[in-house]
């Protein structure tokens, strides 16, 4: 007897573990009969999960915090024991804003570390000229995109409200919104940065990896009550996704992966637009340069699927700084209640994998890859941070 599951996802390259587990038979291998349902909005994903239409969902990590605390929706505790990977976002700007930025620094696409301060200079001149405030889009109020973009702005003293406005545009609509001039830039996951570049609608100026090395992104969200009642199914779900993530990381499967993702029922974007996330490249057709970002999107390497409670804690702290959650909220406690790190460790070590023995690590201090008890982990440096170990 197979167990039937309904899982919701959004058309983004990091939904790949779900697509691969289904197409390559990993779900089947663990007696799971999974129906994947593509959704058009994060709100739909949240509500369908919360009200039991879905058993599990591809979710923005901060949405688990917002639903658990009842921010902007019905209060329902959600948990996760699987991360879909690290990184994958980037910031792109319109061709017009790009032109203004190149007036300040002609080689801006090759200097990601300088682009926030270049943007600040552009904002200053725009203010003098009496131009309109720049508008940047993120994909959801409770998203890494929102926190990463704000963090990056803060490194150059760009003030949200005074200098720029932030609004929400869903992932599949950002390219159109940029093209129609409704926004001047955005922070979104792939393939929607590369797609804008290919359509010559915008230019990618910095990747999420360069803002925070190996940042958390999407996780497998489930209801807390579901996780408690379905331990065995949850365990098999994690195992099948782990094998899928491992499969994705194997270069020989690369072409097949692009083929699956480009299918209309999954991401539905051309292979050309999907390729860069996995190839680790940011390209700019205007001056035909490509920058190598090997960790642009990390589906498996460096324990990318490990649900670090320190990731959740960072997220809650950003939410607190922004006033989305109350000042008295204990970030560590919230992180521990939502991230089932012990459960992940139990399940994945039973497959013979060596895993970190702790649930928290120091974030924002490692400039290079490093070892924790013999396990290689990626760097975790934050842009503009001075307390890095060498």
């Amino acid at each position, binding site marked *: 007897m197979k167990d039937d599951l309904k899982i919701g996802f959004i058309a983004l390259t990091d939904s790949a573990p779900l697509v691969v587990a289904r197409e390559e038979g990993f779900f089947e291998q663990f007696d799971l009969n999974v129906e994947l349902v593509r959704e*058009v*909005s*994060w*709100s*739909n994903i949240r*509500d*369908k999960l919360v*009200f039991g*239409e879905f058993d599990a969902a591809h979710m923005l990590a901060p949405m688990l915090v917002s639903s658990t605390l009842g921010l*902007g*929706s*019905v*209060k329902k505790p959600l948990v996760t024991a699987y991360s879909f990977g690290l990184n994958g976002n980037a910031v792109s700007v319109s061709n017009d804003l790009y032109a203004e930025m190149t007036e300040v620094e002609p080689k801006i696409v090759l200097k990601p570390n300088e682009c926030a301060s270049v943007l600040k200079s552009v904002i200053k001149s725009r203010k003098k000229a009496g131009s309109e405030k720049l508008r940047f889009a*993120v*994909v*959801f*109020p409770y998203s890494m995109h*929102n926190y990463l973009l704000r963090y990056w702005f803060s490194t150059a003293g760009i003030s949200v*409200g005074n200098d720029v*406005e*932030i*609004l*929400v*545009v*869903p992932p*599949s*609509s950002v390219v*159109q*919104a940029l093209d*129609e001039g*409704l*926004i001047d830039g955005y922070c979104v996951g792939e393939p929607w940065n590369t797609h804008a570049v290919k359509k010559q609608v915008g230019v990618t100026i910095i990747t999420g990896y360069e803002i925070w090395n190996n940042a958390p992104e999407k996780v497998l969200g489930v209801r807390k009550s579901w996780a408690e009642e379905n331990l065995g199914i949850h365990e098999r779900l994690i195992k099948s996704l782990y094998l899928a993530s491992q499969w994705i990381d194997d270069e020989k499967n690369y072409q097949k992966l692009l083929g699956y993702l480009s299918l209309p029922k999954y991401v539905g974007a051309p292979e050309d637009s999907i390729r860069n996330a996995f190839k680790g490249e940011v390209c700019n057709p205007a001056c035909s340069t490509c920058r190598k970002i090997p960790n642009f999107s990390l589906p498996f390497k460096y324990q990318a699927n490990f649900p670090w409670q320190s990731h959740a804690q960072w997220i809650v702290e950003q939410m607190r700084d922004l006033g*989305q959650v109350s000042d008295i909220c204990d970030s560590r406690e919230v992180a521990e209640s939502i991230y089932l790190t012990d459960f992940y460790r139990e399940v994945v070590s039973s497959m013979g994998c060596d895993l970190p023995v702790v649930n928290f690590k120091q974030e924002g201090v490692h400039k290079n890859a490093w070892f924790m008890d013999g396990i290689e982990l990626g760097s975790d440096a934050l842009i503009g941070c001075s307390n890095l170990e060498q």
Partner: protein
Amino acid sequence: MSIKVMLVDNETVRSAMLSQALADSGYEVIARVKPGPNLLAKVAQFMPDMVVVDTDSPDRDILESMHLLNEHNPLPVVMFADEENEVIIQEAIRSGVSGYIVKGVDMGRVNSIMNVSIARFREYQAIKNELRETKSELDDSKLIDKAKRLLMENKGVSEEEAYDAMRKSSMDNNKKMSEIAQSVVSVYEL
């Protein structure tokens, strides 16, 4: 005071049906718009008390951000999340409709608008399903006629003999007539 409702829907027929039903119940629909990234501007233009949105459009996420991100937005809209009446939200989500409200509107009226919307969305879905079935019945009968004609031309049999042969095959193989007709057509049209 009456609640001013704005409808965001890709299906103009459904939107017209719902608009009429709300008007019949004494609510004022001040605008019917198609989804798109410029939804914020539309909300600022029409200043509704409530937005009813089709969940097949990605615009829900835009509405969810209004009370959080846009400090200068004239209208903070929040998701209709009546904690005491979760059943309505659940049914709304299942029926493909969602509601957003401006703080301070009368919840009793909001619940009633949501119920009217849920009913209209379901009715519309039922009509669509019925149309689809009728269309597929029509397609089936066209296919069977074509298969009959091909058999008559290629086997030199009468219309009745062609039909009987297909019916026998349908019963023997426990398959639908339309499936048998489809295989006949594929054989002769190769």
